[in-house]
């Protein structure tokens, strides 16, 4: 009746916190601890009675190695239950554990009591046959684990639909207990003791015994099914809690498989099975305790995953070893050292691939998210290696693998404290926005930060394995981002240098025109006034003063030419005006077709000097008879074409001034092309984006 008692207790306990009276709040804690201590006291007393029975050599008693298992099987759920019940008296789980442990302790202690009362010292203790009756109620052993499986971890059934299943399980236990209590014959080892209970199962209902047993076993699986449904639906903390429970529960089938193997190889396991089941009982209780109170204590995902993988690998390798030994033994004769050597070699060779396969299979079966995530990342890394995708996409791939759309990868830039989002945007300090930040390291150095949903902290294994799988791509992307940023910086600084050059030319031109030239003109005026004010008798000074003023005029002309070379002032009037002046001064006929459209000053300057250098180069080296210059604006770009009919064979590298020309063009983000076959003239084509 343990199950019913558990649920009843929970109903009582749930009411307690509603009462604001402090003394009432204390009560459930006190009750929980008292019940737990009672259970421990009961099993301790049982063990002492077993010593007494053993002293009289009662059959079945005195299996000392089993004592720790018995003690643990009772005290683990008792103490865990008391802690949980004391922490949250409103929930049933603590009470299920406490009352479960108490009923288990009663059943376990009843056996030695009956031994002492009936066999060792007959008559010394009262109620020996009643104790034998209690002792035969051992299916209570399964009651609390099934109850926990139904309501873990929130104390409620997974859904309303599970109510009939829970009633079925509770009913199965109840019917079985009634059947056992009213049985004609008690369970082993007291089959010879007369049942003291006055009522018997009516003759017509004797068949109920077998279905009752089957129902109890069925309810074990139904409970497991409830936990499985819960796990499938769970997320975050609840998922971790379910994993802890699953981990402990998982040991049971593994253990049973182990005993089957043992039975095949060594022989009947005997009392070891009972020891193992007791150990499992305590393991489940401890798992519940950890799940409720310290679910982040260990990385349960990893623990579970590794346990499954290594158990499966070990079993497979053992099987493989056995098969190979058998086959090799048949071939080479029993006892040959070759047999062992071959078997070991085969097992060693199989280990690595087998482990990978099993790992993938376990991931696929038990952690689809991790399996899919890792596959996605490794497919991406393959694509990057094959050049099908850009490593910078790694952030999106990680976000998809983690199923966290808010995840964002920031690359740590080498040699700096800065982070970049990969699109050349630089973030100095990732702003705090409710997302959690995880550092990504590669060979001990930080290579990136991942900002992600805090819920992912409940999946540290997923996070770590996805990031580890992606780390090479992250490292590559990070270096590429760095190179790109540096290139952008170099390009910007070249543009600045060229721009500064244009500004310097403008300043120099101003200085020449407004400074030196003005002084020369002033000087000329002074000389002229002097000349004009000469008295008649000093007219002889006229001619040399004329010569001096002419010299001043020539100096001014020189200065204007120099200033125009530095920067033609007519550039202020536009490219067409400046180019018209330029070509007029050339010794070769030039056909000029220039756009009258005004462009940004730095582009006009760049275009002017490009044409200037190109035609100067042509005149100097190509001996052309005709040059054509074409400057036009189309599709937001200024295109320049400078063609001559000279000797051709020009190259950019031959110190012809064309290298400076490419610098000017590229500093404005433009393109440059040179066609110059020997004897076929030279054509230079330039395109400069001008955003108009």
């Amino acid at each position, binding site marked *: 009746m343990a199950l019913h008692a558990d649920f009843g207790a929970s109903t009582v306990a749930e009411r307690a916190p509603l009462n604001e009276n402090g003394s009432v709040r204390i009560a459930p804690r006190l009750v929980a601890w008292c019940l737990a201590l009672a259970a421990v006291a009961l099993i301790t007393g049982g063990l002492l009675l077993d010593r007494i029975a053993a002293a009289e050599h009662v059959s079945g008693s005195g299996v000392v190695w089993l004592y720790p298992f018995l003690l643990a099987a009772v005290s683990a759920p008792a103490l865990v239950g008391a802690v949980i019940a004391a922490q949250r008296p409103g929930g049933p789980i603590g009470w299920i554990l406490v009352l479960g442990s108490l009923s288990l302790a009663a059943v376990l202690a009843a056996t030695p009591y009956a031994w002492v009362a009936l066999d060792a010292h007959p008559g010394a203790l009262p109620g020996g046959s009643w104790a034998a009756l209690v002792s035969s109620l051992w299916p209570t052993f399964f009651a609390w684990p099934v109850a926990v499986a139904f309501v873990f971890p929130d104390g409620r059934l997974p859904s309303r639909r599970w109510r009939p299943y829970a009633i079925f399980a509770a009913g199965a236990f109840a019917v079985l207990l009634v059947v056992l209590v009213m049985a004609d014959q008690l369970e082993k080892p007291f089959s010879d003791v007369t049942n003291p209970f006055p009522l018997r199962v009516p003759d017509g209902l004797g068949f109920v015994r077998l279905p009752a047993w089957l129902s109890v076993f069925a309810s074990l699986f139904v409970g497991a099914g409830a936990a499985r449904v819960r796990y499938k639906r769970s997320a975050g903390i609840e998922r971790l809690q379910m994993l802890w429970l699953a981990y402990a529960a998982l040991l049971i089938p593994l253990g049973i498989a182990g005993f089957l193997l043992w039975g095949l190889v060594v022989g009947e396991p005997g009392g070891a099975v009972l020891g193992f089941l007791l150990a499992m009982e305590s393991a489940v209780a401890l798992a519940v305790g950890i799940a409720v109170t310290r679910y982040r204590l260990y990385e349960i995902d990893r623990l579970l995953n590794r346990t499954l993988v290594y158990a499966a690998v070990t079993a497979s390798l053992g099987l493989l070893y056995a098969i190979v030994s058998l086959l090799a033994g048949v071939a080479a004769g029993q006892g040959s050292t070759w047999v062992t050597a071959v078997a070991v070699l085969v097992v060693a060779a199989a280990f690595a691939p087998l482990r990978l396969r099993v790992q993938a299979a376990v991931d696929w079966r038990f952690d689809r998210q991790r399996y899919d995530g890792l596959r996605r990342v490794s497919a991406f890394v393959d694509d990057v290696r094959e050049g099908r995708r850009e490593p910078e996409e790694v952030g999106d791939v990680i976000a998809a693998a983690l199923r966290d759309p808010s995840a964002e990868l920031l690359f740590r830039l080498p040699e700096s404290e800065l982070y970049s989002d990969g699109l050349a945007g630089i973030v100095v300090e990732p702003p705090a926005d409710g997302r959690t930040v995880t550092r990504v390291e590669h060979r001990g150095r930080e290579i990136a930060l991942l900002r992600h949903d805090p819920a992912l902290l409940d999946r540290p294994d997923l996070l770590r394995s996805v990031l580890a799988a992606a780390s090479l791509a992250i490292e590559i992307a990070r270096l590429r981002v760095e190179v790109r940023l540096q290139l952008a910086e170099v390009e910007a600084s070249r543009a600045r240098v060229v721009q500064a050059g244009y500004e310097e030319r403008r300043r120099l031109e101003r200085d020449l025109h407004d400074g030196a030239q003005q*002084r020369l003109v002033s000087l000329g005026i002074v000389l002229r006034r002097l000349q004009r004010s000469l008295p008649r008798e000093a007219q002889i000074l006229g001619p040399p003063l004329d010569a001096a*003023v002419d010299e001043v*005029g020539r100096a*001014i002309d020189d200065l*204007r030419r120099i200033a125009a070379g530095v920067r033609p002032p007519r550039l202020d009037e536009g490219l067409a*005006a400046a180019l018209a002046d330029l070509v007029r001064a050339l010794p070769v006929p030039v056909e000029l077709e220039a756009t009258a459209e005004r462009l940004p000053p730095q582009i006009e300057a760049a275009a002017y000097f490009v044409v200037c250098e190109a035609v100067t180069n042509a005149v100097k080296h190509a001996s052309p008879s005709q040059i054509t210059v074409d400057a036009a604006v189309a599709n937001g770009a200024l295109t320049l074409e400078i063609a001559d009919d000279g000797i051709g064979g020009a190259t950019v590298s031959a110190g012809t001034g064309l290298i400076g020309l490419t610098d000017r063009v590229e500093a404005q983000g433009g393109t440059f092309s040179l066609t110059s076959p020997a004897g076929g003239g030279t054509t230079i084509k330039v395109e400069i984006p001008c955003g108009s």
Partner: protein
Amino acid sequence: MRIVIAEDTVLLREGLAGLLEDAGHEVVARVGDAEALLAVVAEHEPDLAVVDVRMPPDYQDEGMRAAAEIRRAHPATAVLVLSQHIETRHALELVATGGGFGYLLKQRVLDVDDFLDAARRVCDGGSALDPEVVATLISPTPKRDALGELTPREREVLTVMAEGRTNAAIAKRLWLTERTVEAHVRSILGKLGLPISGDDHRRVLAVLTYLRASGA
């Protein structure tokens, strides 16, 4: 003539004033920037303003803009703009919109008689255009086939005519008789398809308008 001078370089300003005063003109005001220039022009209503193109505060084309303003607001005041370097567009616009405007490179001042002649011409409602500006106009381009039809001598005549000079001055400069010059001028105007006019100044305007419309 009553003259105001706007020039930010003091040495040059005083030199200019000296030259003009030596020639018997009266310099009624000397200023260093465009704002002050407009103020003294409004105050004195002079016959002529000699204006530097680049002046404070920005050293761009303050003088040119002030010249346009003076021509608009004080038609009686002629303007002679002096520039350190050639800038054609604004100069041509001002010359072509009517007489009383001249545009010369600063160094032309050193050819004192020519300079004083230009000042006088502008003051009388004529025009003066620097030979270098004219040179940029009279170079044949695909758009200006008509210029290619001129004889070399006709082109020389056209060049001097475009500077704003009278037939007499052209004849003197090119060592020709006035009659020959007149014949050349008729021929030029005919080839360019311009109306023949006895008025020297109208003729210059027509030529400049033609040149400006067809290029530069």
